[in-house]
């Protein structure tokens, strides 16, 4: 166990805790934009988690997965926000 692996383990634990907090807000959120915001934060935390797991397992494959998750998260948030504010995604 060197210092990098200990830091990665602590970081993975902290990001998992923040995923759980986002899930709580997603389930509970009193308004609909709260839930969409929780989903957006969840996507960002998943990007960080996938990058940290790629460093932990020393495989370069997971960075492309993180890129795809980031792209899908942005597109999903934009589509949901447009649906909430316009009632229609593509006009």
């Amino acid at each position: 166990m060197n210092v990098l692996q200990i830091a990665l383990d602590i970081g993975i634990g902290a990001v998992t805790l923040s995923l759980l907090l986002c899930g709580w807000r997603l389930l509970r959120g009193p308004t609909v934009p709260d839930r969409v915001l929780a989903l957006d934060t969840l996507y960002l935390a998943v990007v960080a988690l996938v990058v940290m797991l790629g460093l932990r397992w020393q495989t370069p494959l997971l960075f492309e997965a993180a890129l795809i998750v980031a792209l899908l998260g942005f597109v999903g948030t934009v589509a949901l926000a447009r649906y909430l504010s316009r009632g229609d995604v593509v006009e």
Partner: protein
Amino acid sequence: MELNPIVEWLAAALILIGAFFLLVGSIGMLRLPDFYMRLHAPTKASTLGVGGVLLASLLLGWSQGQPGIAELLITLFVFVTAPVSANLLAQAALHLRVPSRAQEPKGLPPKPADPDPAP
């Protein structure tokens, strides 16, 4: 895997800073009292957290001679798109008349009749 100890400690510090800011953003989103404050917390803190983790990953990749194009792309993409999605969410919340706790500023003229009532 042999690493320079300076690079290793720097990457460990960046990972810890990034994870800390992600956790702070999530706690702020859980604890703050109304939607506009909750929008404010993860938009900045989570961007900084993801930036720290990706910077550590870039540093480790460069110290082993890998270019790290994917990390650079993710960093640029997250830094560009996080304010855009927060702006769109704020527009959606204003359109849906999500209640705010902010006080009404003093000295405003009386409100005109609402031209666009919420559906």
